[in-house]
């Protein structure tokens, strides 16, 4: 058995289209997921039960259902409520909601990782809750937030493959098409896997850059000795840098 690379090169166009669609779906879902996650996390942190309870329910709902089941529920269920969306749109919405549950827990953990006294000293001097979050808490939570958000974002890129079940022409679906035409599953999935790997590696590199840019400010808060100690003693898995 020999590896026939011409199967990949002959169908490069389809793979490229699929990759572009996967990037589009993933980026849209990650960004909207993050945007939803912040208010959900803040609600969840509220001491008032009426505020925190819906957020808990939201997170538990979207976290405890396999994505493929959730996607099917959306796709076949929404028309019952008169909402007919394109498969691609349904997929992005479902992936964003799915991701937002994980992102919300990360945001919550990251906020809680900042010592309580930080919020207290900001409020005591007269900053509003939101200003204290923005100016004092967020810059300090990035060290915790970015590595964890990277992991979830990579998971979302991989989960986007499930959209193939709705015939959304993303990377996995295009791979299946090529396989159907060529009957060369090994070459096809080798190519597909390589492209996924490349995309997630790129994504991780992007997050690392943002960590250096954004976290650079926050990092300065810790002397070089602390930084070194933190790197070696850290119990949080961090991406290599």
């Amino acid at each position: 058995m020999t590896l026939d690379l011409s199967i990949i090169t002959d169908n490069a166009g389809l793979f490229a289209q699929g990759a572009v669609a996967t990037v589009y779906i993933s980026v849209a879902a990650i960004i909207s997921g993050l945007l939803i996650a912040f208010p959900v996390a803040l609600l969840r942190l509220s001491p008032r039960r009426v505020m925190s309870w819906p957020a808990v329910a939201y997170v538990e709902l979207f976290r405890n259902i396999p994505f493929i089941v959730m996607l099917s529920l959306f796709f076949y269920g929404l028309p019952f409520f008169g909402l007919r969306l394109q498969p691609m749109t349904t997929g992005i919405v479902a992936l964003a909601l799915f991701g937002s549950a994980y992102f919300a827990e990360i945001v919550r953990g990251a906020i809680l990782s900042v010592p309580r006294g930080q919020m207290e000293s900001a409020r005591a001097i007269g900053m509003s809750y939101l200003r204290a979050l923005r100016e004092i808490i967020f810059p300090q939570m990035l060290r915790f937030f970015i590595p964890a958000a990277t992991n979830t974002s990579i998971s979302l890129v991989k989960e986007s493959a499930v959209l193939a079940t709705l015939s959304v022409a993303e990377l996995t679906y295009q791979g299946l098409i090529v396989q159907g035409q060529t009957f060369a599953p090994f070459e096809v999935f080798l190519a597909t896997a390589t492209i996924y790997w490349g995309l997630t590696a790129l994504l991780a590199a992007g997050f690392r850059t943002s960590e250096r840019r954004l976290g650079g400010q926050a990092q300065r808060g810790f002397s070089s000795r602390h930084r070194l100690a933190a790197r070696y003693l850290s119990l949080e898995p961090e991406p290599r840098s």
Partner: protein
Amino acid sequence: MTAPPVLSVRGLRKSFGAMTAVAGVDLDVEAGEIVCIIGPSGCGKSTFLRCINYLERPDEGTVRIAGDYIGREPAAAGGTRLQSARQLDRMRPRVGLVFQQFHLWPHLSALENVARAPIRLRGVDRSEAEAQARALLARFGLAAKAGRMPADLSGGEKQRVAIARALAMKPELMLFDEPTSALDPEVVGDVLRLMKELAEEGMTMVVVTHELGFARKVADRIVFFDAGRIAEMGPPDELIDRPRSERLRLFLSHFQ
């Protein structure tokens, strides 16, 4: 008409579940007065201090800063009602609070720790705010440390920056919550000296402290807290040398 006291507390109560931390406290502090609060751990003195600027929301009672209500105000229909978050945020800068653990913002330089609030909350020009912050830091012997990050400062330096941060908002009242308890013994004196200077300049101060020597030298009045109440109150000599209650005698005996 005489000016209202800088701090006026009436009927303040605060419980955490079944535990009563502050059990009905009335206290007036006049302009320029230094009041030191002493008492055994867990007697509610820190909670009382944190209730003054509503970091802890009292269950009952009112607090006024130079006559203006903070946190809770009389309602038109009688009784009291909580102020809006915005009202509270506007009142808080009038009270400076210094924490035991400093709580400097570690991602900002010493200078920015001091200048940030005046810039954001008072709309002071950055250049002007930084000049004021530098002057404050210089006064506290920290001119060379303005650009340092908090992690690169010693405990005594951190606490002096924290005091400068609170003063930058030009508060009418300064609250100190055991400001020297987290410091190495050799730098405690530096911070106390600074507080004494502030007192001599006429700042109104309420200081929760275990430093009886400081309280005796600097305080106009000492308040002895016990079980969430003011158990005894008076000028330092009277209170420390001639304690009336057995509780205070016992408490003071631990310091000899």
